[in-house]
């Protein structure tokens, strides 16, 4: 209460300030008049009397100041003074101010952006009520998040730990709202999805668990707010409307609230559809297949009072029941819980590690920036030692002078922080609006929130105090008499100072960043030139999902064959092949395979888990996948013929020991069918560019049909004409079939996307770090040269050679540079292990990388010490000694 009162009093006096000043003025004038009256009475003329009265009164300005202080309210007032003075000082040295503000702005922006991403993707929970108790399920030791629908039902109905368990899956569908068909991305969800998450509709209603009555029983759609806004123009009459989804009628039930965009942070679906209609949506129905783990994730709220470990124990007991009951389908059924937003640890762990690493680096950059600014400030304080000494001599307290310096530091940090925050908000907004891939509903929803603003403000204030504190000791030890008498005295410190340490740390960070970005760039370049197992140049991709146009069963392969034949007739086309899912496309299909001798076909006995591609006979040729031995598939490998496969070299050596053993041998799939290997092809990249060689098998599409299809059209003709020709050809075949055309190189963008992003962000941070290191080394070298000018001059006068002078002037800077670079390089080598998750073949044991780092650091050192070295060499001892 006392504090509040005094604060109110101070603020009140602040507002009464001008009135009070006028009164004070009046009072002092009145005093002098009275005194002058007395003096006049003693015989002096009026003018002389007034003059004498003023003299006798003493320093009016000083007493007024003291009066103001005595009357209270001085803290705010002197703060105003400090700010005004600081602004004047900063205005007087625009170069220093600009450097300081830009340095801080860059460092704060880097921190705010990285924190913004970290905050949005990792720290911020999904936007659902009680997000704290929402968990997703992970299965087995490799933390797979996908489950099969029958397993999901068992987990949902048998557990006692969750309020409810919902599940979802991502899929693409063809949507026809009356005009032209287009494809849309959806989440297939269980009926209880919205209820389990606790979401309320924005418009209309949601579907519920009670709407599910077996396959295709719930033809309903719930729109996302964004899709409703962009495709239905906020039309409230949309509820109850029937639209065509893959040529099946579906009813729009309602619209979800704007803040809820699904349960996968980086995917924005267009709408939700009940998963019981999977057959209509995906063209296949695996809801009864316990071995097909097509559900992306199972998630739910824990019951109140149930701990995660209790829930895990509960799930594991269900798991062991499932293992015992369904040994053929259910392998390792142990569970763990994860945050649901990032598809579990599969994506969450490398992302978290990478972002944490970035955050650490950004923090270190800020620290380095503070160190730089601190030494700049210290140098400035040394330059201003005369001013400080004068003020001390005139009676200013040291506290007051320090407060002044801190005001300047905090002012700079606030200006820099505001500028940095502004930049980062622009960047983050841009990032959020960015749709990185044209073919997928990917987003990076990183809009800044209060947390980001708060962190940026806190960081800038903290850094202001940090670098403001550097010259404190210097000011506290200023002896005004010495300084004024003899000018600033430069004592050359020989011992290791905190500033030296900071510089070493900073150089180390820079070297670390340079190492990581070089490793990333090299990895990226290597991944661009590595063998994919196919040739993306001169290949066009035509993607369709026949299920979107109502094809099913036997009509699917027939239509596929017609498409291939039609496209082959286009002039310039060399070959056309079909594959159900492209290699390096999002996720890959894989199945367990067994040796021919295995009889107990449970997952634990599998010889390998192989990538599975269903292809048309021409695919291997169209993709330019080299056949190493045997034959390719033919159209005669159909349902009536014995089952055959072409496998890659890794498959051959893993299952059969060698390629020669593999030819014409048999292996088994989970359903017990024996498949004969008829050909062997080269290894390729299937799930990601960073993977080790994976076994893969290519099966004839007539023996394992799929309605998902991507046609690879290889030609040497003009691509624009080709696109037009493909369009008209496909539309001639079926006008209602939604399809997309793009080049294979464009498609690969998505596979390269993570490593590109990693390289880009590391590169940006590397450049920043390098900039800061240059200013840091430059500041240190320039400072030490200017402090030792006299000494260097004497040395030169006594006959020192240029080399010796340089060594004396810059030896220390280079020593620090060497130590820092070595430390940074070592750290960079360690950090590359994290990078290897994202970037293909990221290894620092690469002579080019090592040489690059050394070269870069050397260049950096030369650049930073160039000007100070020139200054040291241009010393003219005569002039210097005469000046003293």
């Amino acid at each position, binding site marked *: 209460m006392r504090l509040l009162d005094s604060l109110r009093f101070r603020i009140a006096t602040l507002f009464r300030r001008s009135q009070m000043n006028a009164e004070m003025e009046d*009072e002092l004038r*009145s005093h002098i*008049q009275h005194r002058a009256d007395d003096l006049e009475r003693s015989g002096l003329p009026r003018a002389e009397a007034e003059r004498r009265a003023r003299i006798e009164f003493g*320093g009016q300005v*000083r007493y007024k100041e003291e*009066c103001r202080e*005595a*009357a209270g309210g001085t803290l705010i007032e002197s703060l105003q003074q400090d700010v005004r003075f600081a602004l004047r000082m900063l205005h007087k040295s625009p170069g220093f101010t600009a450097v300081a503000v830009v340095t801080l702005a860059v460092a704060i922006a880097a921190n705010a952006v990285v924190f913004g991403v970290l905050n949005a993707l990792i720290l911020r929970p999904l936007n659902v009520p009680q997000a704290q108790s929402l968990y997703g399920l992970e299965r087995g030791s490799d933390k797979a998040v996908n489950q099969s629908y029958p397993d999901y039902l068992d987990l949902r109905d048998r557990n006692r730990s969750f309020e409810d368990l919902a599940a979802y899956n991502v899929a693409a569908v063809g949507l026809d709202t009356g005009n032209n068909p287009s494809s849309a991305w959806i989440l297939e969800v269980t009926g209880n999805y919205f209820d389990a998450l606790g979401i309320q509709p924005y418009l209309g209603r949601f579907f519920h668990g009670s709407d599910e009555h077996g396959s295709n029983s719930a033809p309903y759609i719930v729109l996302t707010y964004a899709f409703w806004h962009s495709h239905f123009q906020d039309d409230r009459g949309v509820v109850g409307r029937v639209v065509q989804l893959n040529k099946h009628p579906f009813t729009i039930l309602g619209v979800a609230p704007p803040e809820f965009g699904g349960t996968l942070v980086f995917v924005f679906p267009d709408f939700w559809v009940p998963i019981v209609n999977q057959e209509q949506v995906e063209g296949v129905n695996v809801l009864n297949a316990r071995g097909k783990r097509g559900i992306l994730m199972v998630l739910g709220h824990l019951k109140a009072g149930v701990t995660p470990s209790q829930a895990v124990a509960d799930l594991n007991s269900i798991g062991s029941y499932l293992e015992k009951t369904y040994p053929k389908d259910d392998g390792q059924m142990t569970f763990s819980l994860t945050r649901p937003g990032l598809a579990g640890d599969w994506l969450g762990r490398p992302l978290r590690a990478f972002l944490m690493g970035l955050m650490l680096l950004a923090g270190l950059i800020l620290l380095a920036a503070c160190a730089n600014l601190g030494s700049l400030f210290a140098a400035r304080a040394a330059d201003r030692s005369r001013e400080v000494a004068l003020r001390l001599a005139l009676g200013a307290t040291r506290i007051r002078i320090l407060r002044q310096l801190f005001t300047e530091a905090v002012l700079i940090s606030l200006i820099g922080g505001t500028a940095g925050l502004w930049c980062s908000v622009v960047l983050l907004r841009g990032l959020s609006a960015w749709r990185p891939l044209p073919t997928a509903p990917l987003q990076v929803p990183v809009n800044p929130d209060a947390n980001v603003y708060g962190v940026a403000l806190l960081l800038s204030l903290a850094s202001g105090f940090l670098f403001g504190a550097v010259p404190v000791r210097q000011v506290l030890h200023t002896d005004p008499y010495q300084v004024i008498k003899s000018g600033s005295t430069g004592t050359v410190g020989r011992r290791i100072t905190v500033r030296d340490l900071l510089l070493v740390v900073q150089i180390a960070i820079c070297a670390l960043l340079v190492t990581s970005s070089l490793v990333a760039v090299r990895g990226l370049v290597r991944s661009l030139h590595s063998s994919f197992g196919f040739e993306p140049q001169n290949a066009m991709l035509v993607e369709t999902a026949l299920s979107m146009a109502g094809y099913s069963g036997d009509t699917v392969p027939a239509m596929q064959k017609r498409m291939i034949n039609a496209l082959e007739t286009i002039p310039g086309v060399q070959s056309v092949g079909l594959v159900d899912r492209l290699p390096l496309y999002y996720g890959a299909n894989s199945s367990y395979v067994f040796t021919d001798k295995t009889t107990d076909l449970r997952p634990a006995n599998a010889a390998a888990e192989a990538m599975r591609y269903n292809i048309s006979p021409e695919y291997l040729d169209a993709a330019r996948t080299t056949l190493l031995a045997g034959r390719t598939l033919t159209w005669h490998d159909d349902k009536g013929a014995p089952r055959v496969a072409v496998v890659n070299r890794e498959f051959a050596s893993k299952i059969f020991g060698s390629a020669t053993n593999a030819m014409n041998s048999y292996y088994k799939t989970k359903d017990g069918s024996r498949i004969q290997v008829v050909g062997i092809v080269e290894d390729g990249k299937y799930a990601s560019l960073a993977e080790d060689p994976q076994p893969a098998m290519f099966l004839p599409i007539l023996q394992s049909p799929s309605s998902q299809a991507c046609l690879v059209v290889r030609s040497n003709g003009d691509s624009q004409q080709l696109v037009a020709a493909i369009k008209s050809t496909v539309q001639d075949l079926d006008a209602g079939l939604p399809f997309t055309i793009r080049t294979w190189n464009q498609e690969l963008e998505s596979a390269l996307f993570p490593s590109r992003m990693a390289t880009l962000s590391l590169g940006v941070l590397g450049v920043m770090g390098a900039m800061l290191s240059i200013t840091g080394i430059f500041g240190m070298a320039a400072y030490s040269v200017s402090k030792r000018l006299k000494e260097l001059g004497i040395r030169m006068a006594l006959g020192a050679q240029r080399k010796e002078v340089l060594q004396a002037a810059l030896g220390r800077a280079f020593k620090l540079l060497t130590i820092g670079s070595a430390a940074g390089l070592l750290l960079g080598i360690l950090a590359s292990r994290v990078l290897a998750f994202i970037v293909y073949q990221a290894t620092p044991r690469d002579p080019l990388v090592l040489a690059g780092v050394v070269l870069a650091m050397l260049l950096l050192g030369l650049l930073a010490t160039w000007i100070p070295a020139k200054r040291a060499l241009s010393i003219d001892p005569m002039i210097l000694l005469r000046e003293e």
Partner: protein
Amino acid sequence: MTAQAQLLPGTLDLLILRAVSLGPLHGYGILLRIGQISGNALLIEQGALYPGLFRLVRQGLLTASWGTSENNRRAKFYELTAAGRKRLREETDNWNRLATAIGSALAAQPEEV
């Protein structure tokens, strides 16, 4: 001019309170009154009075109001508050105790020890 004594730190407030206790005064009047009651034996720089006055007002020991002086000029008059009166009593007692103690200490003769 007779020899004047330097004011001990902190004693100016006491002198101001004492001067005002004899009746409302403006700043210059206080100065004259102090000179009068101390027999002009104390050296006070004129301006130094005012920070003291502002401090005492802020502590609630004095109140101030504008009025007209005997010279027919506008002036700010100071008056003792109840708290001021109490403080003056306490401070006077303190001072007397201190002065007596120091006086007797300084007056002590060798044979009295």
